[in-house]
């Protein structure tokens, strides 16, 4: 499976803007599910995952501006301060665009390790803003970055599978 994914070069898999928007919307909806208690602590940031995926695989389609816009929507939904998610997602998208050549050289397992610092950075940005404004930090919050990185491989496989044209099953 991972061999096949490595063979999927960027230009071999066409993607429409509608599909990108649909995946981002789905990720937002997943984030907005009524997570509570222990599940909230372990909730991965689906939006960050999908954003990073597109920034890595289609850096010229999805960039910092898209990340920022999605971040603003997340801010409104969360009743967090305007720009808090937006800032974190912008930094995440930037790191994705800078590192995509390097990260995509690895296979999926190694990618997970490469992705983790990027998520940690985005989570840190969010937590720093909160710390600056409210003066307290909850360390449990960072568990989400670990879970998000662990979901990187399944998410990549899923999105690649959705992008692959169905009509040509025998093509390698």
């Amino acid at each position, binding site marked *: 499976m991972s061999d096949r994914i490595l063979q999927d070069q960027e230009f071999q898999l066409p993607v429409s803007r509608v599909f990108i928007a649909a995946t981002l919307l789905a990720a937002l*909806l997943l984030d907005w599910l009524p997570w509570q208690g222990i599940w909230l602590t372990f909730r991965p940031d689906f939006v960050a995952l999908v954003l990073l995926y597109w920034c890595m695989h289609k850096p010229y389609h999805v960039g*910092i501006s898209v990340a920022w816009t999605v971040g603003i929507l997340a801010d409104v939904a*969360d009743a967090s301060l305007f720009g808090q998610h937006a*800032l974190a997602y*912008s930094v995440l998208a930037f790191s994705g665009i800078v590192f995509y050549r390097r990260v995509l050289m690895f296979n999926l397992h190694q990618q997970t390790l490469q992705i983790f610092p990027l998520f940690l950075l985005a989570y840190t940005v969010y937590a720093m803003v909160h710390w600056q404004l409210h003066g307290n930090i909850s360390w449990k919050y960072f568990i989400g970055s670990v879970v998000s990185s662990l979901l990187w491989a399944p998410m990549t496989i899923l999105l690649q599978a959705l992008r692959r044209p169905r009509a040509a099953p025998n093509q390698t």
Partner: protein
Amino acid sequence: MEQNQPLRFFNRGPSPAVRLVFFALLSLLLLFVDVRYRYLESIRSGLSGLVHPLQRLVTTPSKLWHEVDDFFSAHNSLIRDNAALLRQHTLDGAQLLQLEVLKGENQHLRKLLMVQQRADYPMQLAEIIYVERDIFNRKILLDKGTQANVLAGQIVMDDSGIVGQVTRVYPWMSEVTLITDKDHSVPVQVLRNGLRAVVFGAGDAGNKLALRYMPNSADIQNGDVLVTSGIDGTYPPGLPVAKIIHVERDPTYPFARILCAPIGGVDKRRQLLILSTLLKFPERPEGVEAATDNSKNGKRRGQ
């Protein structure tokens, strides 16, 4: 100048670094404006009109599940509940009769003493539609907003005690900060001896409240009930808030460490009550009572 640049076949616009700086500055500016001023509320409520239908959509499966669950709840438990409720209703009814008498008497006495009348607080029922998924905040969204005349600053409670305070109002929903939120404070009195204090959300300690800045010698015991003092003019007096569950008096610290558990079902209920009127302050000077009332006006909002 152009010759020094590497050849660029496609114009991709400004480089990622430039974009990052631009958007980061934009975010920081928005953050600053949002924290310092309240200019962005209209934009926020506009965008919320776009976002909240989706949020509602997302919560429908769990809501459906609850409804189906309700539908199939056993016949026996319904009968049992009904009987218990009926009994409770009879008891409450008797007490309510006494309350009416006492209320009339109190009103009469207050009139005799020339003290300001206590207002009645009309309330409306609202349903929780969404619980914030941010572990930093303890907030919930209710399904009543400006269309139902909800105002920011109103109190939210359930049948047993205070749950929180409305902090932001949208057209069809309102945002409630729970009393367990770290930044939220409620002025209280100990029911047993009338000691005044302010209770804060404990934040990371989970679903708890903390009484800060109480001296070691303060007369507080386990099991003491805290009720709102009403001194701030925002919370009506006498509503139960929390119960002391842990008192730690360490002489090395100037203040005792006191933890309380909320009495209201802060994270249990689905329906909550919004107290509909904010206390009307008496006209500026006039009498002595009015002046003292105003000067004791404590911290009004938790934000």
